[in-house]
């Protein structure tokens, strides 16, 4: 690769690391909590 491509390559991966890393973190944090198990009816 030439100097310009190496420079673009570094920039793209830095931007991707920040954007996708942020998106991935947000999608984990904002994920809906797991459904609570349905309580089993107890006999009187």
């Amino acid at each position: 690769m030439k100097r310009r491509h190496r420079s673009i390559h570094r920039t793209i991966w830095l931007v991707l690391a920040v954007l996708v890393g942020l998106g991935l973190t947000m999608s984990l944090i904002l994920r809906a909590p797991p459904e609570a198990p349905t309580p089993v009816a107890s006999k009187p």
Partner: protein
Amino acid sequence: MSAGFCAVQWNRDKLVYDGVLLAAVALYIGTFMAVSYWIEPPKTLPDAIDVRIRAFGSCAFVMLTIILAIGPLARIDPRFLKFLYNRRHFGVLTFIVAALHAVFMLEWYAARGELPNLVVELTTWSDYGKFIGFPFKAFGVAALVVLLLLAVTSHDFWLAFLTPPVWKALHMSLYVAYGLVVMHVALGIMQYDRNPLIPAMLIVSFAGVTGLHLVAGWRERAGDRGTTIGSDGWIAVGPPQAIPDKGALIVATQGGERIAVFRDGVQIGALTNACAHQNGPIGEGRIVDGCVTCPWHGWQYRLVDGCAPPPFTEKLATYPVRLRAGVVEVFPDALAPGTPAAITVQSS
């Protein structure tokens, strides 16, 4: 190009590479489906299609991750260079697997009689303003379009037609496609399937690939800082014996391109470090059969003048070299491609 290289015909290395690749893909998909059927046998046709969607989708993701790891791994450790050869077939197969994932998804909607719902899902514009609830399939469609573009232009015809710098820039869009795929999974299946393997796979894969690219990029940056130029404009490379026989030392001017200074016994010559094929780092290659050989795909050039051996016609730019006070020096202004510039030094 290499004297022993066939541009179109298959050769043994390509057949072995592709054979292993196809076997690995079949093994992954077969194992995924068998385990899924064993854990929870599908009760309906859409359930069975869903298993296929997951098998092919996860396979495409793993393949994309491996493809993106090969480049930086080869920069960090030359032992990975052999995986670089024929990587384009790997890429085309990844596109096929990803396209099948999309076809099964269409089949799933059709089997439920809900095909119009897919259109509604992709055209509910208000959902594009949400984060959770974003139409994640749009990310998948965008990534598939990029993969299609790259698969179509992967042949050497397009490489020659577009020129290596344009082709290389176009194929860098694979990085963006990977980001789209990660978000496709993160906002898609990861939101409604609580299997901890999904976020684990995403985080490990993305962090691994990103880390490798950043480390490789950082190392390359150090190599681009450049060597100090002498007062007369020449760059000192070192004594002839400092250049490995049949190998090269790479020098760079500040802000300039890299120059590969090769030694073949008593002959020393300097060529541009960018191969005419894909701008591969030719200075990291070796002299094989008397020709400088690119480590990426084996394209070859004569050390004396940078010309590919007949019948090939590619030429690399050469640089003037001289031996002064026992030190090899190179002049950083490139000569016209194909200009003889190598020198012969006395053996010690």
